[in-house]
């Protein structure tokens, strides 16, 4: 396997958790809810996902555990923000703090254990094609699912009636409510979907990326996923581009470190975080003239009047 091929494969792997988590959050934010707890749901997905796979020996069960853990946490968030009209920023932060603590508690017994990593697709002949074979036909299920998920989200948002209603709820909850749509119920479903995606993204890390669990292994990926949603202007297509751009930055800095260019390794490690800040500045600045493209009701509480 050539160096370029290896780099492309590792970029795809590094981008996938970002893409999965950001795709879920995109739906949540399109429904007008800002869930800042992605990092907490991801790390819980990682801990529970590893626990599930370790106990049953199955990657699939592990992934399901991860999804369930993310959903459970997001349900707590929904009860607070939708049921009790709590400030979404504060509740999201609480979710992250809780998720990091709980994952440490659950994962403590599994640190140092190993599992069999997620199996990779293998199609005779096709997977054997030089260069593109492994990239296109030799990946694990998470990676194919992440692409399918984004396509599904695009189709849902722009080609279905339910997607139209979801966007209406996010742009003006009062109007949607006046038209008779159950705003809080739709938002609950969106938040649960986002939680499931974040949990799956977290589960990807110990199940397919590294075959073991370490506390805090998400290392800020949940926050980068949140930035990606802003970067994408809430459009699924741009989300893919953004996730792969960030995956590329985080992998290429590792290779640059290996070459030993005389740059402190800490500076290279800081690159994805610095890139996030820079991208946010550039995007926000470019948008200044055109006005905000964020869902108009994003982050505001809604208490239906009877």
């Amino acid at each position: 396997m050539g160096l370029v091929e290896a780099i492309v494969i590792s970029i795809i792997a590094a981008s996938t958790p970002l893409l999965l988590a950001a795709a879920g959050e995109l739906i949540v934010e399109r429904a007008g809810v800002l869930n800042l707890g992605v990092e907490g749901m991801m790390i819980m997905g990682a801990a529970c996902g590893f626990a599930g796979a370790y106990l049953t020996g199955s990657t699939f069960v592990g992934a399901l555990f991860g999804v369930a853990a993310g959903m459970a946490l997001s349900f707590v968030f929904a009860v607070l923000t939708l049921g009790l009209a709590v400030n979404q920023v504060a509740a999201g932060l609480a979710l992250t703090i809780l998720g990091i603590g709980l994952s440490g508690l659950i994962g403590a017994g599994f640190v140092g254990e190993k599992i069999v990593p997620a199996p990779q697709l293998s199609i005779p002949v096709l997977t054997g094609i030089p260069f593109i074979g492994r990239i296109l036909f030799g990946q694990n299920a998470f990676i194919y699912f992440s692409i399918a998920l984004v396509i599904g989200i695009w189709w849902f948002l722009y080609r279905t009636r339910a997607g139209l209603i979801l966007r209406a709820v996010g742009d003006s909850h009062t109007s949607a409510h006046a038209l008779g749509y159950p705003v809080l119920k739709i938002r609950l479903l969106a938040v649960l979907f986002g939680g499931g995606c974040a949990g799956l993204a977290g589960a990807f890390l110990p199940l397919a990326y590294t075959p073991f669990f370490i506390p805090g292994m998400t290392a800020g990926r949940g926050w980068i996923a949140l930035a990606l949603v802003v970067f994408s202007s809430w459009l699924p297509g741009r989300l893919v581009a953004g996730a792969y751009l960030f995956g590329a930055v985080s992998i290429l800095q590792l290779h640059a470190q290996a070459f030993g260019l005389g740059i402190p390794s800490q500076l290279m490690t800081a690159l994805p975080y610095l890139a996030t800040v820079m991208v946010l500045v550039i995007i926000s600045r470019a948008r200044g003239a055109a006005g905000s493209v964020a869902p108009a009701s994003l982050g505001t509480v809604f208490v239906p009047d009877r």
Partner: protein
Amino acid sequence: MQLVLEKRAERSTFIALASPVLAIALTLVTMSIFFLMLGKNPVTALYVYFIEPLTDSYTLMEIAVKASPLIMIAIGLSLCYLANVWNIGAEGQFLMGAVCGSYLAVVTNGTGAGPWVLPAMLVMGAFGGTLWAMIPALCKTRFGANEILTSLMLVYVADLILDYLVRGPWRDPKGPNFPTTASFDPVATVPTLMEFGRLHAGVLLTALLVVVAAIMLSRTIKGFEIRVVGAAPRAARFAGFSSEKLVIFTFAVSGALAGLAGIIEVAGPVGVLQPGISPGYGFTAIIVAFLGRLNPVGILVAGLFLALTFIGGEGAQISMKVPLDLTKVFQGILLFYVLACDSLILYRIRLVAAKPKAA
């Protein structure tokens, strides 16, 4: 039947006072359930967590030492949150304060410099925190970039800068085999208040700060401005208050306080600059700010309470073999309950019969 929220005509003053107490009570109940699940006696565990640290003068001092940075950071954060500015990168500002202040301690190390070093370090620390906080503040006011994400990303960067310095240029050449600067000289160290224990002069500074913040928020035009911009941005615009200037102001103050807390921690209890100087003070301070209802006196009480959970958690880990992460779980749960109970100040929960289908 279903539960619905109904807006109160006025804020409930009774619940405003009762809600933190209720939140703590609910957290204690939840903790008991956790202890039962871990096979520990909840009564003993709660005693170890919350009562035992209060019975010993050494742990009492440790609580004050732990609470001091939490309160100092949380007071700065409360100004931000009151003004609806979401600085969640206090952890990074804390670290950069520690780094900038330590610079003086490192360059004067062993040179026999005079007693000006410590005051200058504190100024540098506050300056470092402000500088770091200005990045998200300016990104927000100049370009409209979301301050939540930028301030948080800079936490990771600050952590790496500290790591680089203590492994590289600032590393103690004569030191043992782990990354740390040389121990600070006595002139670069915050003096302790007692013969024994770690109680230091920074604690007094925090107490003074609580008083100053309380006066500033309730008695000055700046305090009024912060509250108006946060509570009613439209009214604030008509009053001629600039929300942009307030973003800069609140970020600058909270950055300075976090930076000051950082350098005091390094020059006081820790005594050297090394990785891992903060057990997440910048994040726990967010909980402290909310639990204290964004009010300086409330924050004082909340900071002491959260410090108690840290010290009690350490005690429980040693004497009862309870995992240390449990403390973080409780702190997260506590914040949830605080937010949920606060909702009852503005709303009341009503049980109503299910609506008949609209004809």
